[in-house]
């Protein structure tokens, strides 16, 4: 097991949609240990509701997914990927592990010291249930794989 992380910039497509998905492959489980979000542009006038959870169905055919980077250069190459666009997007989680009302320039860092576990071929999503001004969000995730 080793720590891997990756960052990206993602813009909400609207309310009731995934902003970003963290995906395991068919071969490797992973534990999500940290997730962060910030934005350099004011998202007023309307606040945004920002959540994380396991989608009812994960996204299909992600567009140009990114593979996590090893924080230890001697670790094997990671397999977990992230995506912000899909042919068919993830569907809404039934319930959520965390929820946050994003307003103005708020930022969030969620830490899961024991890991939020993902099975093989599974995913977590950042879900935007109510979108504010659809501006770019800086997001990152750290996983133990």
């Amino acid at each position: 097991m080793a720590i891997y992380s990756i960052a990206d910039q993602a813009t909400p497509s609207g309310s009731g949609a995934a902003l970003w998905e963290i995906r395991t492959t068919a071969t490797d489980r992973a534990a999500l240990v940290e997730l962060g979000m910030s934005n350099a542009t004011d998202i007023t006038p309307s606040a945004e509701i920002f959540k994380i959870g396991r989608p009812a169905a994960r996204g299909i055919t992600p567009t140009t997914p990114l593979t996590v980077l090893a924080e230890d250069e001697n670790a094997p190459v990671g397999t977990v990927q992230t995506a912000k666009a899909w042919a068919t997007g993830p569907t809404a989680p039934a319930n959520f592990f965390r929820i946050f009302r994003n307003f103005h320039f708020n930022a969030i860092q969620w830490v899961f010291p024991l890991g939020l576990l993902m099975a093989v071929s599974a995913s977590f999503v950042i879900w935007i249930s109510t979108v504010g001004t659809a501006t770019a969000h800086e997001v990152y995730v750290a996983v133990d794989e």
Partner: protein
Amino acid sequence: MAIYSLANLTTGVTAATAALEVRSTSTDRAALLEFGAWLNAATASTYGVGRPAARGVTPTSPITWLAEDENAPAGTIQTALAWGTGPTVPGNFFRRVGLPATIGAGFLLAFPRGLIMAVSASVVLWNIGTDGAVNTHVTGDE
């Protein structure tokens, strides 16, 4: 192994350039444990932390980080704010952070198991956009 750290006020703010580089020598590896930065100017900014595709060449007046235990041997890891040839953009970033145009806005990023640098390697704080100068610090285990 001992803990070292160093603070800098960055000067480079141009988009798509490094604001700060943390550099290992040819003899010592290191593990970065913490990265912090707070705006020194009211400029909306977006930063990334990553391994440059190529590290900077001929750093200008690099500074060696400081031992947090006075009994520890002198550190070897250095930081640089300017170079003859600057570092080149990382392929992807470990972290990205956006900050509003407010002096004092900032971030503190922790790497509990260490962001490992091999010998003769580096990690950069990258100006993704035209950014403000930041009061920054890095902490590591060497």
